[in-house]
């Protein structure tokens, strides 16, 4: 009997973890397709539509192509770190999903009730910076090291406002568990969503998420005209694919986090009667977030680096601090 008590949960977690990773990887593959098709539409093109119906096999073709590429290691690179960097980039992107509740009930999340969920998210996401820095340094290439430097400075600068915007959310929900934050947002109507009660925090979170992802308009890390491909310059084949994977998996994670913190997570009508519906609501919210991220990329031009840093330190940081103070004041006054 004792053995069953140990083995059964391990099997359960193992199964859930495998499913989680498979979802993340499939999500990654089809987010790339989604982005290419959607951005093509926005630019009045058609986009990849030849491999399979509507181009649905395009990610498979891309993956196969990268697999059969030669694995080249630059002669001057620090070999160990050069191989380590892509792994460091992708692992945090995958394990951040551990605390996100995908649906109602314990079945749909690995450990959504972790009482330090928000801290875990912040900690794990900031590990991702090491991937960029180490890649830039280990490649022993000027473009790469400049890209790595830019990436580190940008990501850590925006992490401050990112963290402070979530302080306001935790203040509201009085809990750092993601599941509690979702439950806090469902008093029955849509106005319970924190995006309506914390619009400043939601805006700051969205901007900082984009900067953490180093996607347009914050993609100075890999500004093609100046830095070729930034810290990715010396990477090819599957090692490049890992960085690519980390970017898109993180994109899904950020979208899922935004949905969890500000859009009521998995909540929606009839969730209590049909728990499966909660999965659908969550998926729809994440998808909308992804489309908006792509839409922003197609619309906005790239920032200039000094303006990027000034915006992070002089605008977002004081604004998010003021938002925390305002939220605290409103809670004390009994408005929230």
């Amino acid at each position, binding site marked *: 009997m004792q053995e069953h008590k140990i083995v059964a949960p391990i099997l359960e977690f193992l199964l859930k973890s495998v499913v989680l990773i498979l979802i993340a990887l499939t999500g990654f593959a089809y987010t790339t397709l989604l982005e290419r098709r959607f951005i093509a539409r926005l630019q009045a093109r058609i986009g990849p539509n030849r491999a399979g119906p509507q181009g649905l096999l395009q990610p498979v073709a891309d993956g196969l192509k990268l697999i059969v590429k030669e694995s080249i290691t630059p002669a001057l690179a620090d070999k160990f770190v050069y191989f380590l960097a892509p792994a460091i980039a992708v692992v945090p992107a995958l394990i951040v999903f551990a605390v996100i509740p995908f649906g109602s009930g314990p079945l749909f999340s690995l450990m959504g009730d972790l009482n330090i969920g*928000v801290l875990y998210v912040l900690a794990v996401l900031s590990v991702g910076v090491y991937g960029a820095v180490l890649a830039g340094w280990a490649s022993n290439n000027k473009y790469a090291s400049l890209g790595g430097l830019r990436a580190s400075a940008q990501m850590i600068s925006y992490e401050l406002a990112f963290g402070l915007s979530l302080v306001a959310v935790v203040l509201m929900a009085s809990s750092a568990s993601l599941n509690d934050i979702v439950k806090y947002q469902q008093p029955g109507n849509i106005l319970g969503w924190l995006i309506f009660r914390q619009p400043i925090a939601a805006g700051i979170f969205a901007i900082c998420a984009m900067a953490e992802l180093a996607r347009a308009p914050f993609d100075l890390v890999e500004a093609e005209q100046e830095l070729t491909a930034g810290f990715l310059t010396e990477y090819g084949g599957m090692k490049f694919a890992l960085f690519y994977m980390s970017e898109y998996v993180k994109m899904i994670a950020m979208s899922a986090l935004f949905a969890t913190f500000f859009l009521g997570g998995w909540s929606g009508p009839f969730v209590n009667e049909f728990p499966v519906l909660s999965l659908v609501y969550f998926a729809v919210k994440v998808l909308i977030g992804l489309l908006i991220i792509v839409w922003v990329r197609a619309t906005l031009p790239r920032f200039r680096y000094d303006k990027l840093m000034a915006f992070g330190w002089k605008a977002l940081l004081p604004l998010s601090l003021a938002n925390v103070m305002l939220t605290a004041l409103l809670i004390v006054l009994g408005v929230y």
Partner: protein
Amino acid sequence: MHTELSDYLPLFILLFLSTAVAGLVILISVVFGPKRRAKAAKKVAPYESGMNAIGSGQRRFPVRFYLIAVLFILFDIEVIFFYPFAVAFRQLGLFGFFEMMVFIGVLLVGYIWLWKKGALEWESMDKQ
């Protein structure tokens, strides 16, 4: 609320599997990729848009990146301090509110000092 290390078991399993996936992906390209014995010197040279690379790729970099990193550590620790505060805020009531304002006040004084010192100016550091 009590938490044991075993509560974090699913996290460790996920961490292990994710690392395995990353390692496997790197291994795949080594196994399935074409293997060419003779490596041309040009092929494994650092990429510099077709020019011969001059000097090392790991060069000295502007001190302002260091400065940003130091400032980040200072502020990030203070952001982390907010979390326990925020979780307990409703229980602490008015007392907690004033404590928090004092904390933010200290933070703001430091922030204003940094701004006045020009530590947040990206361009002025160039001119020095």
